[in-house]
């Protein structure tokens, strides 16, 4: 360093403190306010419920975060969730004919979601369509495909064969709902991948500077494909969990879930200009959105007002975040 250090007279640095813990504090503050307003918030049952509801958005948000990290966007997650789920559910409900097992159905959903993601990836990477447009197209396409496939009707009747899927959606292990465990495992995997595997570091590098990544010989096209495929596959997996909970597959499922995921990722501190964002931040972002929705429900605020309130809180969170950065 050329300039002399003056660390000795540095008092407690609030800015750094808020940069590190501000998000967590916001979550705690939100929990505090809601628990003051409603004594039903801080109960084991309710918190378990919050987490269970958060797990679906949480899983989608992992993929969304990776896409946003490389300066992309995936608007198709909600529709892909629906399409992958109805295809899997249909094949499973006709299991005697098709021979599809619950495990097979999960694989099929993943395959459908991954393929949709791969098409997004090809459109973005090779045909060079802006991610917003490419995934907007997929959003409409997959929703249409889901409605067409089911004739607009929900698919039920997987009751006997779908035990494994109901397990994923509704069962508990030692009192912990399985969706929470599934989301937790995925978060740990994402954390390890993004922070401790070379490929994950390449994702950050590419988000920081795609040109430099290319000129450094990093596999930029493979990174893009990977990220979009993961986003599609995770959306499909979230759909399977949703199906397990509702015990049916809805062609209209997942509507607007892309916005919940984007909101969680961005509230969690991931930058739209790429390369900056953490898995823990995304997790907290997901929890903030979930707690907020739960709180508004507990306070029996009418649903239209809930949407208004969510919008305001998300905007405030981003303002606050920018102020302390």
């Amino acid at each position, binding site marked *: 360093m*050329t300039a002399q250090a*003056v660390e000795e007279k540095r008092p407690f640095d609030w800015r750094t403190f808020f940069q590190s813990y501000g998000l967590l504090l916001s979550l705690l503050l939100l929990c505090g306010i809601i628990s003051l307003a409603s004594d039903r918030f801080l109960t084991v049952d309710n918190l378990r419920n919050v987490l269970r509801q958060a797990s679906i958005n949480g899983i989608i948000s992992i993929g969304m975060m990776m896409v946003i990290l490389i300066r992309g966007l995936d608007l198709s997650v909600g529709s892909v969730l629906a399409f992958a789920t109805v295809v899997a559910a249909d094949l499973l409900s006709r299991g005697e004919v098709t021979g599809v097992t619950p495990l097979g159905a999960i694989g099929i959903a993943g395959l459908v979601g991954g393929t949709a993601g791969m098409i997004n990836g090809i459109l973005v990477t090779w045909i060079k369509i802006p991610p917003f447009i490419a995934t907007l197209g997929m959003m409409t396409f997959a929703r249409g495909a889901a409605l067409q496939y089911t004739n607009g009707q929900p698919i039920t009747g997987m009751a006997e064969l779908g035990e494994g899927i109901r397990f994923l959606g509704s069962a508990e292990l030692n009192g912990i709902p399985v969706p929470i465990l599934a989301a937790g495992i995925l978060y740990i995997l994402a954390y390890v991948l993004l922070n401790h595997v*070379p490929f994950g*570091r390449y994702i950050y590098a590419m988000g920081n*500077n795609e040109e430099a990544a290319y000129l450094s010989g990093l596999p930029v096209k493979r990174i893009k494909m990977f990220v979009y495929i993961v986003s599609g596959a995770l959306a499909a997996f979230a759909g399977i969990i949703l199906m397990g909970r509702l015990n049916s597959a809805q062609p209209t499922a997942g509507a607007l879930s892309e916005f919940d995921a984007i909101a969680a990722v961005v509230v969690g501190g991931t930058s739209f200009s790429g390369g900056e964002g953490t898995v823990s931040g995304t997790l907290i972002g997901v929890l903030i959105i979930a707690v907020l929705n739960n709180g508004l429900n507990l306070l029996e605020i009418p649903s239209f007002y809930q949407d208004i309130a969510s919008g305001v809180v998300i905007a405030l969170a981003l303002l606050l975040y920018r102020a302390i950065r």
Partner: protein
Amino acid sequence: MNQDDKQTLLRLQNIHKSFPGVHALNDVTMSVLPGEIHGLLGENGAGKSTLMKILNGVYRADSGNIVWQGNAIEIHSPQDAQRNGISMIHQELALVGYLDAGKNIFLGREPGGIIPGTINWGRMYADAGRIVDELGLAIDVRRPVRFFSLAQQQMIEVAKALSLEARLIIMDEPTSSLTDREVETLFSQMRALRDRGVSIIFISHRLEEIFAICDRVTVLRDGAWVATSPIADLTTDTLIKYMVGREVDQIFEPRTGSISGQVILEVKDLNRGDRVKNITFQLRQGEILGIAGLVGAGRTETLETIFGAHPASSGIIRVNGEQVRIRRPDQAIKQGIGFVTEDRKGQGLFPAMTVAINIAITRLAELVRAVLVNRGAVNTLAEDFIARLDIRTPSAQQKVQNLSGGNQQKVIISRWMTLNPRVLMLDEPTRGIDVGAKHEIYRLMRQLASEGVGIIMVSSELPEILGVSDRVLVMHEGRIAGEFNPQHATQDDLMTAATGMVQEGFRL
């Protein structure tokens, strides 16, 4: 207060500014007289930008005064500075390319029309035309600025400053992307401005320019004031000594004698578009091959083509005698070719990532334990290069965007050195870098060459080309227009070839 105050235009007094962890400015005092061109010098990180940002209202000083025309003032924002008559022209120009010159000059301050809320376009263009004429600029104010040369765009920025009735214009490295002729034009216009009583603070790393244009200079080092002096009282050596804080007896490294290594890279009839035409040359182990030429002569494009960033349309590349196929950068890297690009920020750095990752990124896949990145190995590798190249950073975990330009450049060179390249290509390796760091980069290039690496250096600075290279190629309009021995050639020889005068059949 002293007696100068009446005639001093600006006085920055005892300015202090700290950022978390660094004392960026320590008791800096500097004054500017009316109608002078005042050079502000110092290595990267010396505090020039911080001082100018304080003057421009971007930062607030922790303590100290700004005395403007005899009155202590406070400047809270760039708009505030402009109201006082202080305008700053940044290195990256702030013009809107799609708008014409007139609209750019009056952007946000368009004169009102008869109907409130409308713009009186006629008056705006008339005013813009008048300002441009006064500057002696022969340009059409209705032409979008993206069609103008960089020098003309600089002058449009100046015109904008004048439309704000600026009495002091800060120019931050205005010449860094101009050709020599454009620099001359800019300088004559700067002199005309000075003669009208406008003062200019001029920041540049090119000492020749400082001597050519400045009346007085102020030198900063490590956030502190070192000297203020009329330029006539200074020599290049004293100026460098002020900046670096030690004697720099020789900027360039001595050559190591004749180059007799085997041919490591051979390029034959390489073509791409109209910027790379029939490029043929050989590079030996241990050789530093300089490529000179004007901006747009195809030098960068030639390197990009060899590296596979943009594939060649035809031609042969041989590495170590073997013909290789390079269509993508990773294929060039596999052949042991490294490429330090001209645009550090845009093409080299991962700004928000650590110095360690920036150095080790291309080796990351090997620095693993099972499948996980071995942080210890990454840090060891990075710290090895931080020590070897004397990269000034608080730690390997610092974000690379917080380093100075010279140190960032060393990080990128380190990245390529981790791969033990056989050929290292450097495009304008010292652009925007201070004298001290330049010297270190030259030394590093010579050291790599002596270890057997073949080096290609593209540079627009002729003294650098002549001082560093073992052999020089000059490009003109996509072709190699001449080959020179730098120990015998002069800058004129290179310029003659670079402007195509040799091919045209007459000499300057």
